[in-house]
Each structure stands twice: as C-alpha cells, then as structure tokens.
C-alpha cells in the first residue's frame, strides 16, 4: 500500500525530525570540521578521477572537448608497441625494486637493530638518501654512471681492468640503473619501518627459542619473519604503488628532445609514457585510459597482496 502524507502519523514525522536534529547536534560539529577537507577532496581528487574515467572514453586533445569513442583507447593500447614496451619495462622495474628494497631494508634493519651508538649513526647514514630530493639523487647518480673520465663507476671498473661501459646508452643497463638509484634512495626508509616492526616483537619469544636450541637462522625464519608480516605487506604494497608510478628519474635521466624513453625505449615506463601521450602529444583521452589501466594493475596487485597476507594469518 502506498504511503500518502495523510496516513503518516504527525507524531512520527515530529519524532523523525527530532531524531535528525539530535543527530545533527551530535555529529554536526564533526561534519563542519571535516568540510574544508571534504570539499577540497571532492573538487581536487574525486572530480578529476571521475572526469579522467570519462575522458578515457573520448578523444579529448586538451583544447577541444573530446568526442565519445567508446573503448577505442583501450583497444588501441594492446596494439601500441610503445605501451607494451613501457608495461614490460615497468614490470621488470617493479619486480626488481620491490623485492630488492624489501630484502635490503630488512637486512639493514636486522644488522642495525641493536641500540648502540654506532648503529644509530649507521641508521642515520642509510636513511639520509631517503630525505634527499629525487632530483639531487638522480643528478648524483648521473655523475657516477657517466662515461666521461670523471665517472666513478667506470673509474672503478678501469681499476679492475674492465673496459668503459657506456651505461646511459646501453639499453640493457637502463632498468638496472633505475633500480640501483631507487634502491639507494629507498632502502633507508624501508629499514626504518622494519626497525619499528622489529621493536614490536617481544624479545621473550626469540630468547625462549634460543633456549630451546633454535639457531639464529631458525629464529629469524620461524619467529621474526612471520611476526613481521604486516610490516612486510605494508612495505610491499606501498613499494608497488610507488614503483609502478616511477616518473621523475626516467624523465631526468633519459628524456631528450622528442624522446622520453632513453635508448631504444629501454627506460620507458608507464607514467612517463602517459605523460608523453597526454602532455607532449595532446592525446589526453588515450593518456587517461593508460592511467586507468595502470590503476587497475596496481589495484589487482594490492588486492592479491592483501589476500595472501590474510590467508597466511
């Protein structure tokens, strides 16, 4: 039976109104306080996201409003040789940097976990690159890897009788160079997070295991590592997100006139390619579709990680 105004009891309407007023009294201040953030979030985050999803189905060129072209941008992607190259390069980079960063960060945390003065100094030294700007770090490594006479890497190689390697124009070196630079800049931060995780593990457990005859390797493998799982998952997920979005290093080292991917596109990763399509070639519709594919990849990887972490609880 349909409810009309005539058969709604007035005392019920009043009660509802009173309840709403009470709710506002209780929650209103909170809503008002989060309003500045919420408005900015909606305008500068939610709206661009929704808009970019729409743009991914158009041929928007940045100036004229785009026409709806259905899924053409997404179809185009799979036949786009450069996109596939960017995707494979990004995958190689992500696998290498996330695994090495996690392993090296953990190794450093284990090595420097004792609260001695020397360890404190070492921690600060290893953490230092994490607070240095990527631009400065990249410029430093450019100087190290250059094939000019002052290049440190080649000077060391020459010391061991190895011929000059022209790192920046050798396609096989592009991803390793990006990984080395990221690792140097990032493992200090990872170490700090692992140190925090290690401090939350009670010493009693490892002591008890030691008394029961567990070796240090067994204690690490069977006690410390499982207890560090939440920390590890956090590091892997944030590492994945950051690694998939690598941009500044590639741009600073490999971008030249008309080319953003380095020799033979060997350093071309997804976000620089997205930037190139969107802001150099004015294909903002296509760039938006690349962004959404990247989002999908990161989302799936994150969900897999969370699921794996939960299953092993």
């Amino acid at each position, binding site marked *: 039976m349909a409810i009309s105004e005539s058969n709604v009891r007035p005392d019920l309407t009043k009660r509802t109104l009173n309840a709403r007023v009470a709710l506002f009294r209780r929650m209103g201040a909170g809503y008002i306080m989060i309003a500045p953030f919420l408005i900015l979030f909606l305008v500068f985050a939610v709206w661009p996201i929704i808009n970019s999803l729409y743009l991914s189905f158009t041929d928007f060129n940045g100036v004229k409003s785009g026409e709806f072209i259905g899924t053409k941008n997404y179809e185009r992607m799979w036949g786009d040789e450069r996109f596939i190259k960017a995707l494979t390069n990004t995958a190689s980079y992500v696998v290498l940097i996330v695994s090495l960063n996690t392993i090296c960060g953990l190794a450093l945390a284990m090595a420097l976990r004792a609260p001695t003065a020397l360890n404190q100094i070492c921690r600060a030294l290893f953490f230092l690159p994490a607070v240095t700007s990527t631009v400065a770090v990249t410029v430093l490594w450019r100087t190290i890897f250059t094939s000019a006479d002052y290049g440190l890497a080649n000077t060391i190689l020459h010391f061991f009788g190895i011929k000059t390697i022209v790192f*920046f124009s050798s396609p096989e070196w592009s991803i390793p160079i990006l990984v080395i630079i990221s690792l140097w800049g990032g493992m200090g931060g990872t170490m700090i997070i692992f140190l925090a995780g290690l401090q939350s593990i009670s010493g009693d457990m490892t002591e008890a295991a030691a008394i029961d005859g567990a070796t240090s390797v067994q204690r690490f493998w069977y006690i410390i590592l499982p207890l560090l799982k939440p920390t590890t998952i956090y590091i892997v997920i944030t590492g994945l997100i950051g690694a998939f979005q690598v941009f500044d290093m590639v741009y600073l080292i490999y971008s030249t006139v008309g080319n953003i991917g380095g020799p033979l*596109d060997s350093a071309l990763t997804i976000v620089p390619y997205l930037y190139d399509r969107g*802001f150099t070639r*004015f294909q903002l519709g296509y760039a938006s579709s690349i962004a959404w594919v990247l989002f999908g990849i990161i989302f799936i990887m994150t969900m897999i990680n969370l699921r794996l972490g939960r299953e092993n609880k």
Partner: protein
Amino acid sequence: MFKLTRLSTRKWTGLTSFVTLVMLFSLVLTACGDSTATTPATTTASAAATTAASAATTAAAGPKVTPGNLTVWAVGSEDDAKVFQSAADAFNKANPGVKVTIQPVSWDDAHAKDLAAATSGQGPDMITGGLSWGIEFGTKGAMVDLAQKYPDVVKNVQKLAQPGIYNSVKTLDGKVYGVPADLTVMMMYYRTDLLKEAGIDKIPSTWDELTTAITKLQAKGSKGMASSWGNTSWLGWYGFLYGAGGSLYDAQCTKVNINSPEAVKSLQFYSELYTKYKTPTDSTIDFEGGFEKGDYPILMQGNWDITGLESGHPGVKGKWAAAPIPAGPSGKKTAFIGGRMIGIMNFSKNQDTAAAFINYLYTDEAATMTSTKAAELSALWLPPRVDMVSKLQVPDDRKAALTAQLSDAGGPPNCKGWEESQNTADKKIQEVILNKADPQKALDEVAVVMNQNLK
C-alpha cells in the same frame, strides 16, 4: 557476527585501498612536451636578405595598437626572457598605455603549462615555444591563424625570415599559427690549435675530410668528435641526410623518402661516426667541457656556443673557431635549423596589439636591441632574419660561419604524422648505431610507420 565483521573489514580494506590508489593516481594525471611539423625546407637565404631591408622598414605599419597589458610566456632561461623584454620595453615606450610583460617558462614546464592555458582558456596573450608548437596548438584551436587574421604581418615575416625556418611554421594548407621568434642552427666547432698540431691545415668541409681529421686527432691522443645537439637521434642525423642528397619527405609531403639510397648511405656514415670513429653516444657527458679540455677537438653543436662557449669555458679563448657542417656527397651542407616560434592565444583580448608586437619584433630596431642585450648577457639571440647576422656582436669569422651555415639550412618537416613518427625514427637510428642493425632495413621500418602516419 564474526562473519559479518570480517566481511565489513574486507570491504573497508578494499574501499580504503581503492580510494588511496585512485587518489595517488589522480595526482599523476592531474599533476602532470616536442617536436614538430614542417616541410623539409632547405633554402638559400640570399633572397630573404635581399628583400629584408625594405620589408623591415615597412614593418612599422600593421595592426592597430590599443592600450592594455600583454603577457608573453617565453620559453627558455631567464636571460632569454630579459633579451626578449628589451624589445618589449622599446615597444611599450613607443606605444603609451601598452605594457608587454615577458615571463620566462622553462623548457621542461612550458608545453604542459601552455596546454593547461589552452584548455582553461586563461593564461598569457602570447606564447613562445618550439617551432612546431604553433601548429600543434593552432590545429587544435588554441591559437590565432595569423595568415588569415593578420595577412600583412605574415607577409612581412615571410619576406624577412630565414626561409627554412619560416617553412617550418607554416601548415601545408597555408595556416600560420606562430612565426619564428629566433633561430638556432647546427654548426661545427673546432679547436684551431689541436687541428694544427695534428697536421690538419684545412677546416674539414666534406665527410671524407671530417673522418680524416678525426683519425688524425685520435692519433694525437684526443677522442675525436662529439655531437652534442641531437646526439644519436634524427636531429643529429638530419644534416648528413640532406648532405647525401636525401630528405625525409618530398617537398609536397606526398611521399616518404626516408629509405631512399641517399638516406641509407647517410645513415651508414652517421652510424660509423659512432661505431668506427668513436663519437660518444652518452649524452650526459659535458661536451663543451670536453671541447675545452681538448678531448673533443671537433664538436657538432647549436649556434648558441658562438657567444656562450667562452663565458662558461674561458680556457678555450683564442683556440677555437666555428664553421658550417661538412658537406656530403651531394655537395650540400644543409644543417638542421630550429628555434622558437611566437604566436597569439585565441582567448587573448589584445590580439591586434599582440600582432603589432610580432610585427615590431621583425624591425631592425628590435632585432638590434635583442642582439645587443644578448651580447651583454653572453647569450646568443639570433633573430630569424639572416640579414641581421651582420649586426651581431661577435667576431667577424664567426659571423661569416653563421651566415654561411644559414644559407644552407632546413627546418623539421611539417608533413602529417612526422611528430608521431619521430620516436620510431630515433629508435631505428639508435638500433643502427647501438645494435649495428642494417641501415636499409631500419629505414624501411621507419618508412612503414611514416607512411601509415602520413595517411
């Protein structure tokens, strides 16, 4: 109850991840440009020089100036903007009530900033940018077609500008969205002292003389030649391609010529400069520093080093000279010509004044003023007028070299799809240099892409 809690936790985790990731990603999209289009225009500049003087005199007559403010986003360094501002100041003085302000924008930021301005319909009245930017922005409706709205201004520019660079800013159907604001051209720099020591009496002016000189210099302990501008790319190869008698497209942009026998021959030679004659492929090297130290006594570089070299590398003073790039088998020494264009945004409310300012930039007064200011700042601002080279404040021998090179220089092609094809061209050229791929096969593959994009 447990199940319900678990489910909501999952949902919450998923939602949180989703929102976090989308936020991160939107930043990438919201936070976050080159190349070109012009017919391969290799030309002689004498015609322009002949008509220049008379045209420059008549340049003062043009669009009506109305009082108001004009903002120009000038791509380049702060010094470049100061050079440009010197002309703007004179224009302001001559036109009471008008205020032209030049704001520098770095090359890294300019393309994206200009695009944001075009998208929002708010920003500067005028922009300067890479030669192709006028066509890029103009064909998308962001810039005024000067040929249609201010035909007299464009006629004046056409008479005065170096023909190669003018052809680079004109679309095939005659639209002109930006005119050259300055120009840059590839040149050869060499160390006079080191060439003499190596027994090289004649400036290398052919490919054979170039390779002979490199061999002799290397025998004396130096590293030979370096190519700074356009290293291992189509831009660096351009001069050799045209020197061999080749071209990227035909003059009407109806046919792709990049895999012609001449082009193959030139790419073979260009790659040998790297593989056989050890020109460095690493662009991170400080080539000017290497030139000063004597590592690279021959340097292929843009004309900006004509004035800029000694200020950054005083040790080279009195030991170097500039010359046109060596001629190829065809006898041509066609160098790549680049530079900046200046155009009017379609949302500008002062379009007539902006057009008048463009006209003013082509006067003798403005060209002299910018050159003088550039000399003060040890920069080289080369007006796009060949006839003005004689007024540059640089030694006569360098002026002569510059004039000689400008007499045979061409801009990037303005054929459809060249922009999209450039990356493939670069990649295939690099495959030949770095992976020793067959030049014919590599260029055939570029031709396939260029033909697809030309349709």
